[in-house]
């Protein structure tokens, strides 16, 4: 669960590929050694605490750990650093398992922290005793502690989650702003960019799409009109619907009209 607290750890996803690979390789070798019919005991990995309170990252091979010097909070690990950590762990594991094969399997990363965060309330809530059930009547519901529902997990996102998501959305908008203002990026052969007619994406009205575009003679999505502009005033080649530039421009245009009433179909 801690993994989703940090983008750095998210970037460690690639690490999981080899970390479980490590575990399976270990399991396989354990199986060979043990008596047939008895399953091997799961490896209990005692992740050492750092004396200085640094973050310690452990592979699930049951033995490999790495202390991240100077980092107390896993949330502070950025993408680049996370990549360096996973490279180091991978190198270490490969050194120990020179013959290893690995399979593409989902990530599993164990993590030790000086002060593990409190799990979200949903995890330790007593649903049976205090929660609402089919048998509860209205009075029973009202008696719930603090008037709060328990036992719900989805939506228990941290402020950091939300900050990360906001930042990545904004990054896309920013990229859209760049494309919108860059005639070369738009493939213009006449040095025209979108902002020349649409400063701050004015007069684009994304909130009115899809709509019947009189001049096209059909119902158009915003991206159809963007492509029309790219082909005509901008004199470039239309972008594919999944072109990252198209997506980014849509993000920018919509961001500029945030809060405007949605009136699809309005011409």
């Amino acid at each position, binding site marked *: 669960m801690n993994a989703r607290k940090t983008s750095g750890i998210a970037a460690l996803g690639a690490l999981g590929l080899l970390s479980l690979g490590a575990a399976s390789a270990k399991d396989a070798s354990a199986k060979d050694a043990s008596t047939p019919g008895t399953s091997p005991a799961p490896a209990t990995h005692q992740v050492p605490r750092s004396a200085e309170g640094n973050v310690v990252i452990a592979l699930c091979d049951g033995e490999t750990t790495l202390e991240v010097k100077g980092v107390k909070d896993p949330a502070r690990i950025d993408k680049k650093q996370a990549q360096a950590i996973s490279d180091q762990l991978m190198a270490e594991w490969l050194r120990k398992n020179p013959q290893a094969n690995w399979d593409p399997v989902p990530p599993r990363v164990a993590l030790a922290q000086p002060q593990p965060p409190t799990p979200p309330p949903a995890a330790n809530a007593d649903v049976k005793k205090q929660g609402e059930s089919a048998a509860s009547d209205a009075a029973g519901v009202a008696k719930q502690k603090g008037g709060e529902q328990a036992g719900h997990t989805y939506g228990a996102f941290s402020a950091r989650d939300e900050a990360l998501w906001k930042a990545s959305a904004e990054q896309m908008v920013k990229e859209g702003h760049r494309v919108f203002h860059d005639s070369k990026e738009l493939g213009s052969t006449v*040095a025209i960019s979108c902002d020349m007619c649409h400063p701050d994406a004015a007069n684009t009205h994304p909130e009115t799409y899809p709509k019947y575009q009189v*001049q096209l003679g059909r119902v158009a999505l915003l991206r159809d009109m963007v492509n029309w502009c790219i082909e005509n005033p901008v004199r470039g080649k239309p972008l594919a619907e999944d072109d990252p530039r198209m997506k980014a421009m849509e993000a920018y245009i919509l961001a500029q009209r945030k809060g405007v009433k949605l009136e699809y179909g309005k011409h």
Partner: protein
Amino acid sequence: MKHIKSIETRHHEERDAFFEGLRRLDRRGFMKLAGLSAGIVAAKGLITPHSFQLVSVADAAPSSRPRFTFAYISDTHLYKKELNDRFVRSILRAVDDVNRLDPQPDFVLFGGDLAQLGKKEELDLGREILKSVKAPVRMMVGEHDWFLDMGEHWRTNFGEPQYSFDHKGVHFITLMSVNEKDFWTERGMTPEERMQTVAGLDNGVQSRFEVGAAGREWLKQDLARVDKKTPLIIFSHSPLYKYYRPWNFWTEDADEIQAMLEPFENVTVIHGHTHQMLSNQIGNIQFHGMLSTAWPWPYAPEGLPSLTVQMNRADPFSNFDGCGDGRFDVTAEGLVDKLYNLWDRDPVTVRSSYLASKGKKDRPAATKLPSY
């Protein structure tokens, strides 16, 4: 078989014929024709003998004979013609328009932004095209002409950007109003980067426009020699009032300039830059925004002067819609009636009396369609 003409062709033919006839009429003749036309309207109910509104015809007729007229072309934003011929075709159309005016204007004002990125070949191309204008051309500078080489090539072609002259009793002043404070040195920008930044409307990087201390001092000296009763007509590229700061529809020291113009009886400021119909009256000063030949701009989300009669949204599918050129008729008082020659639309006249009465008199016909 009878030859069939399209609605557009008929509309333009009727329009041309009507205005041609109108040009040969004196005022009495005009009233007679208007009366006749109105009679037909009354008789036929809603259908006019022409496909355009009689009201706009009445609007187009001058209230009194102008002292003289001058025409304008503005904001052509030329790239070299091998790169972008669309803007070249637009300025050629404007040149044709003013060359066809009869009687010819006393001069043609070019309202700035001749070039798109201030390049030599762009400015030279513009100069070549403007040579085919029959009437003398007066030049004003825009920010697109200036920030590549800080006006060096523009000055070589057209002289100083700030000058004044007297014409038929009116004192004309052309101001250089698009100076910016140095935002480029600190950022280590090349001249091209500086020009590109200024060319973008919606960036917060560049500084705001200003006439600047030296320009204001020059203006003060110039105005000191002018009688307060003499009508003043000022040309500036940026509006000499504060419209919308985020898009630089704005002049930072506008208030100081307005204060300097305050003692004069009749003052008109004519500006380019905003690419839209724009009318404003502040104290004794009347302001008129010019049309662009290159592309129209949407009205800013706030700060629009209340006297502006908005044009509706331009059709993106037409290269010319919302663009155009025009004419100023200088009235006996030395104010101007402005004719917006909107391409592919009916012309609109904004009169000095409309501005002077704060919109109570002579309101120009407005479109029913939203401007966005």
